[in-house]
């Protein structure tokens, strides 16, 4: 596959040999990286799917509860009840390095420790369905945060796996065979040159002998 022109010199040969060794090493390392990434990714994506299904089911039932709650009271009263939230969430985000992919980690802190602070209203003028609805939503919050972690990590890792796989394939099927073909081409060419020099010298020697002594080896 020596499609590109290479100079058949010793220097080029050394260069090609070095390139081949580096490529083989890089190929092995990248392949290991890909395998490990894939292993971790598969674990993570299974969890991702599981958490997502749980969250979606949770949101669905919470939405149902909210619709029921809304039906039980006037729109204005509902808006007033939810107007000023008591609770606030602060997210502490970190980064974790998994096989050179930076994946996010989230931890959250609520502003107040009291878990009843999710009810931002007095209980006198709201329907009890609203309490249930708010509670059902609060219950799935930890799962939602975990989902954010998982899903983002999966996206980032999938992109990295794709990139690594392409590199592995490029090395395996393009760079390494090309280097090998070039090495073969240069070795052949150098051998050929050497033989041709040898023959030329022998020929010259013959001619010189004949000229000096009228002597032929034949």
């Amino acid at each position, binding site marked *: 596959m020596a499609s590109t022109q290479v100079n058949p010199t010793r220097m080029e040969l050394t260069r090609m040999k070095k390139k081949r060794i580096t490529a083989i090493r890089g190929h092995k390392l990248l392949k290991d990286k890909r395998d490990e990434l894939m292993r971790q990714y598969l674990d993570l994506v299974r969890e991702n799917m599981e958490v997502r299904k749980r969250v979606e089911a949770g949101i669905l039932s919470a939405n149902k509860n909210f619709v029921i709650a809304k039906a039980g009271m006037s729109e204005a009263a509902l808006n007033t009840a939810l107007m000023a939230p008591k609770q606030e969430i602060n997210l502490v985000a970190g980064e974790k390095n998994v096989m050179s992919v930076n994946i996010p980690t989230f931890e959250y802190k609520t502003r107040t420790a009291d878990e009843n602070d999710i009810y931002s209203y007095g209980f006198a003028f709201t329907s009890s369905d609203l309490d249930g609805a708010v509670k059902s939503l609060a219950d799935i919050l930890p799962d939602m945060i975990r989902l954010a972690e998982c899903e*983002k990590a999966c996206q980032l890792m999938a992109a990295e796996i794709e990139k690594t796989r392409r590199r592995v394939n490029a090395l395996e099927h393009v760079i390494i065979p090309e280097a090998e073909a070039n090495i073969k081409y240069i070795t052949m060419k150098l051998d050929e040159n050497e033989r041709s020099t040898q023959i030329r010298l022998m020929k010259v020697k013959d001619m010189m002998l004949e000229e000096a002594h009228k002597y032929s080896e034949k």
Partner: protein
Amino acid sequence: MYKIAVIGDYDSIYGFATLGLSICPVKTREEARDKLHQLAGGKYGIIYITEAVAAELKEEIAEYQEQTFPAILQIPGVSGNTGAGVEGVKKTVEQAVGSDILFAEDN
């Protein structure tokens, strides 16, 4: 210190306000797009976005896919689950493995 935001139609997201999440009710595509860019540029670590709105903002969401923060997630809205969230997970499997070998039998 990051915060969490929810983008979507008001009916789907008003409940999240009680938990201390910032809610951003949007009506039009343009409004949603501007809001998304504004939140992503700000100090929001997680942005939940309803599937209905996310379907209109595919390109904008894809822009942030490569970044570590923010994490943008689709959640079902009040109008029902379109399956776009699960589809997204399957898509990453396809991207990583080449074909969906894990969840193909779920369909």
